[in-house]
């Protein structure tokens, strides 16, 4: 099989970025065999510093970067612009207000003729149309499967596997933290504050959990789905958002007695409805998944309802989606 070398930069080297480096290290040979592409990481940038090597960055250099040893004087933008490569992987933390620094990274990459694969929700939710136009103008692709539902495929599922179908609605659980909290509250009959504290202790909820529990994270993901699948031009402000902090153990018990569970559901449909709210889900509905799992039911005109369930978070899970996006560009 003819081999094509695909040079990659990883901008943002936290959990997800290093997860990408890890899966590329593990899967490089198998991907070369199966898909005929040789993935080579030629640049990594993080707040701590940057490393670059045309021959592929070494394991030692990665270790040194992780250890916080200052590496060279280049910036992330220097890597994106000046180091020759094909795909820029953007994995800096999400900022839903400004989209930065991811937005500048993505724009710079497209203008420099790189494909973009990202897990970063901010830029995609804020500037979807602008970024798509820019990508088209430069003949490059921008892919973001990892931004919605982590490892769970939704965007490529609809665009590729369900091609030809009209999509009527997508509803689901797009935030693992909220799912964990509501599942624990219902199963253990514990108050919200207690379970939140527990979730923070085991690292499922962040120290400032407001983006998750107030539904902001779910809403941002919904905006991405609305724009990329339903062709809307929506922003966060178009989403009606209610979080889970008002949910009481009593309410969960009453729901249970009536045959339901309560889940934070993101709901987008072709009529333009964009809503995040706690909803009653029948216990036997496929959307009733527990723990930190994510789930989405896609309602289509031909295939009917399709439900996907998967891990919504985690470095290797997100890296899985990023890897599939990279391979997708070349197949």
């Amino acid at each position, binding site marked *: 099989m003819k081999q094509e070398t695909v040079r990659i930069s990883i901008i943002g080297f936290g959990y997800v970025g290093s997860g990408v480096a890890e899966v590329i290290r593990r899967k490089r040979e198998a991907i070369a065999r199966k898909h005929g592409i040789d993935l080579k990481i030629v640049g990594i940038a993080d707040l701590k510093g940057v490393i670059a090597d045309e021959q592929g960055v070494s394991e030692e250099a990665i270790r040194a970067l992780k250890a916080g040893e200052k590496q060279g004087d280049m910036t992330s933008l220097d890597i994106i612009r000046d180091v020759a490569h094909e795909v820029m992987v953007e994995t800096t933390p999400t900022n839903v207000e400004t989209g930065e620094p991811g937005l500048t990274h993505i724009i710079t990459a497209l203008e420099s003729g790189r494909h973009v694969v990202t897990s970063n929700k901010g830029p995609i939710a804020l500037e979807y149309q602008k970024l798509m136009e820019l990508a088209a103008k430069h003949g490059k692709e921008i892919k973001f499967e990892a931004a919605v539902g982590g490892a769970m495929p939704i965007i490529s599922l609809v665009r590729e596997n369900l091609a030809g179908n009209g999509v009527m609605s997508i*509803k689901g659980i797009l935030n693992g933290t909220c799912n964990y909290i509501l599942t624990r509250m219902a199963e253990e*009959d*514990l*108050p919200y504050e*207690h379970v939140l504290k527990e979730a923070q202790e085991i690292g499922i909820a962040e120290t400032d959990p407001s983006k998750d529990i107030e539904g902001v994270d779910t809403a941002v993901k919904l905006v991405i789905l609305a724009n990329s699948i339903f062709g809307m031009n929506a922003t966060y402000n178009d989403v009606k958002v*209610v979080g889970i902090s*008002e*949910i*009481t*153990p*009593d*309410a969960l*018990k*009453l*729901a249970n*007695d*009536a*045959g*339901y569970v*309560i889940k934070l*559901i993101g*709901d987008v449909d072709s009529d333009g409805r964009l809503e995040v*709210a*706690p*909803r*009653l*889900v*029948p216990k036997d*509905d496929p*959307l009733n998944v527990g723990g930190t799992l994510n789930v989405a039911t896609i309602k289509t005109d031909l295939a009917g309802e399709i439900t996907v369930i998967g891990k919504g978070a985690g470095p290797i899970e997100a890296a899985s989606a990023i890897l599939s996006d990279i391979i997708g560009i070349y197949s």
Partner: protein
Amino acid sequence: MEDRSYFYLPPPITTINKKVITMKVSMSIELKDIPGQLVHALQPISNLGGNIRSVQHQRDKKTPSGRIPLQLVLEIEERSLNILVERLKERGVNVVRIGEERLKDSMVVLLIGHIVHSDLRETIDSIDSTGFAEVVELSLSMPGVDMTSSASVTLSAIGKEELKDALDILEATAEKKGIMVISSI
């Protein structure tokens, strides 16, 4: 000192089954074939505070006795129905059949907030007064005075559209009172 914060006592849950106030009725009547009979027949309904939802008048079809059959759907208070039938008979209108329209579709909705303080009765009445939907069951959970209470409400309506209308009414009422509504997917 023992840490008590991990204990959580579930509150008692009470269930109230409430009485039907307004009912939806379908009625087959027969009118004499002379002018003014339609108004003559419908008048007692509005006189008794009833609400006519639909009238099917088939002039070309006549009964063997030469009367004109008429199909009515109306909402009326349960206690007024018998009076209505009497008044129709007094006016020479034949009442052939009376049937109560069934509340076919149901949904469960949860409410969270200061439900009891906010006059639950008014919220229920706002649904029941529609004539096409009602609150058929209500389970209330009150952990304590001044604490947030929760309720599960079963709404029933004569059809899916009407059920959706009933939910809209409930949501609008709840929003005014600062109560959270959790609806089914």
